[in-house]
């Protein structure tokens, strides 16, 4: 067994940085007087998230396995190590204003965001099921507390308890799946599970284990039929926290799903994902049609978007993985932005959250209404926004991957998805119409956005439009990340047996654009990894 070396620490550097800043916030908080502003702590944790992003970029030179093969740094993990702290950074910026608005004066709020982020990023780089479970719990426990942060409000406490009970219920399922997978293969190391399942015919135990893990993670990503908690929790929880938990843990849980599912190809999860995707899209969009509360409406929309993402999963080819990864980034940009506007507009005690309150916002606060419109158009999937391309890639991937046993299954899924997108445009556009075409019911204009909130909105707007207009660079990177997830050896053969994978020409075409990065990095990661595996 190889001893722990300095490189091992670099492989968890972003987690270490976030933990250090979180602890610093916890230590400084009691030194401040209760009446002092906690703004400085917020800015400190903002710096912490930026430092974590820098640490993740630094990791690019240290691909490979660390900590006895429990953590794997590759393009895939680095993508999420940049995305998730970036989400947290924007949410912290939005929270600076929110906490003052709601008169919540305690610093551990920021520490909890940082600790939650540690769990989320660790989920994306862990390749050991028990470590994934621990990381999942680190992120969940922090978000349970944050959901109930408006302590005096009964609805916030209720959101917290519902999230807690259903979240722990789901975790128990995930853990049972881990235990059964351990029983089926004798290991909890994802890479070894993959080898084991490929070598022997997976027994019934592996099937049940995969199904249970999908149930557990399905809860976390709010995919139907495990979505019941979402509207209630999103309505009651503080708006900036909803921005975080509708994107961060979701992206992390999707990362785990990708890692787990593609290690267990051949355990028949195709139809589970298919049904879940179809149900999520349909229930999410039709549920959103009848909502009167903006947070609730966005909650149902988030269920629907989980469905679109699962369409890319069901495709189960390189394109699908890359589309799913791209989707998490695009969805994060637009959804965090939308919730930041909702958070600002809600004012003290989150009074203005019903759709009617948004009447005439176009006149009262043109800039705010304009940014919200951009996010809503992106959520619909209007061209030139991130949402359009994300959906386009997801559906294209599904059209490319044809299940061998059910040739038309994926085509039907795409048809369901397109019909749903049309339905979805109704409720998003309704909000836009209310903002611009109705007379204001409240005469006074909303309070001007603070500087930090403006920065948050500018970042998310630019990200939404940037990903919609020039997605090339990110797409190259997601393709690279997708190739990391699928070791080229056995996986290709296994996929071929079950699904029509991409022809060689298409794969080459996809990689041609990123070829200036691929060979060098591939070699380095390949040889390093081999060395580490040999050591073990």
């Amino acid at each position: 067994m190889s001893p722990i070396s300095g490189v091992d620490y670099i492989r968890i550097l972003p987690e270490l940085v976030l933990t250090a800043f979180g602890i610093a916030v916890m230590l400084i908080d009691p030194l401040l007087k209760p009446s002092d502003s906690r703004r400085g702590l917020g800015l400190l944790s903002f710096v912490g998230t930026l430092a974590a992003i820098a640490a993740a970029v630094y990791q690019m030179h240290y691909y490979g396995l660390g900590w006895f093969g429990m953590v794997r740094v590759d393009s895939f993990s680095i993508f999420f190590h940049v995305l998730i702290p970036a989400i947290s950074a924007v949410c912290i910026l939005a929270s600076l204003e929110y906490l003052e608005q709601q008169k919540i004066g305690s610093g551990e709020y920021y520490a909890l965001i940082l600790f939650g982020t540690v769990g989320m990023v660790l989920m994306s780089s862990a390749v050991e099921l028990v470590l994934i479970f621990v990381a999942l719990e680190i992120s969940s426990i922090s978000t349970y507390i944050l959901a109930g942060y408006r302590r005096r409000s009964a609805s916030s406490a209720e959101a917290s308890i519902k999230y807690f009970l259903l979240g722990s219920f789901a975790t128990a399922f995930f853990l049972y799946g881990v235990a059964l997978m351990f029983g089926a293969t004798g290991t909890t190391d994802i890479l070894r599970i993959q080898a084991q399942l490929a070598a022997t015919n997976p027994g019934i135990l592996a099937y049940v284990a995969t199904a249970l893990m999908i149930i557990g993670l399905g809860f976390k990503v709010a995919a139907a039929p495990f979505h019941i908690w979402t509207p209630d929790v999103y309505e009651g929880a503080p708006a900036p926290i909803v921005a975080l938990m509708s994107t961060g843990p979701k992206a992390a849980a999707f990362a785990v799903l990708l890692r787990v599912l593609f290690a267990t190809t051949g355990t028949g999860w195709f139809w589970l994902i298919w049904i879940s995707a179809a149900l999520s899209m349909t229930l999410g969009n039709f549920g959103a049609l009848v909502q009167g509360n903006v947070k609730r409406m966005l909650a149902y929309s988030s269920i629907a978007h989980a469905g679109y993402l699962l369409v890319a999963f069901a495709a189960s080819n390189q394109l699908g993985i890359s589309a799913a990864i791209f989707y998490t980034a695009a969805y994060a940009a637009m959804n965090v932005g939308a919730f930041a506007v909702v958070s600002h507009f809600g004012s003290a005690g989150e009074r203005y959250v019903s759709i009617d309150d948004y009447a005439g916002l176009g006149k009262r606060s043109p800039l705010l209404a304009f940014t919200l419109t951009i996010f809503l158009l992106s959520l619909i999937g209007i061209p030139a926004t991130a949402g359009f391309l994300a959906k386009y890639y997801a559906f294209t991937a599904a059209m490319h991957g044809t299940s061998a046993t059910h040739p038309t299954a994926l085509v039907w899924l795409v048809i369901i998805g397109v019909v749903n997108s049309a339905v979805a445009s109704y409720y998003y556009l309704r909000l836009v119409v209310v903002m611009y075409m109705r007379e204001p019911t409240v005469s006074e204009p909303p309070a001007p956005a603070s500087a930090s909130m403006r920065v948050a909105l500018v970042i998310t707007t630019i990200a939404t439009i940037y990903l919609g207009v020039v997605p090339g660079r990110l797409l190259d990177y997601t393709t690279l990340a997708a190739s990391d997830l699928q070791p080229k050896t056995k996986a290709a053969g296994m996929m071929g047996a079950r699904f029509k994978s991409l022809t060689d020409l298409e794969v080459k075409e996809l990689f041609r654009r990123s070829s200036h990065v691929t060979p060098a990095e591939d070699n380095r990661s390949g040889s390093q990894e081999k060395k580490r595996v040999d050591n073990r």
Partner: protein
Amino acid sequence: MVPLAWYLVLSAILFCLGIFGFLLKRNIITIFMSIELMLNAVNLTFVAFANYWNEHAKTVAEKVVPLSGQVFVFFVMVVAAAEAAVGLAIIISVFRTRETLNVDRVNLLKL
């Protein structure tokens, strides 16, 4: 020597009891206890499989890290304890605002 299957059946029964408790009980504390029951059922599965694989390990020695299954139980117990600490705090905050622990009456957030 008790066969592996018995342990697995027992833990499956415990897990299902936990699920039914979660779905049928109306008191938040009881629901929370049902979740703990589910986690402990998983612990039993872990230990049973660890024992099974360790006996197995004499033939396929490299495949199994000895004791790994038993150690996972400690991880699960620590996480469950952390969850309990946070969960009970949340339950207290619900009780303070609503003066009830019946889930049917904690229903502000509904369509």
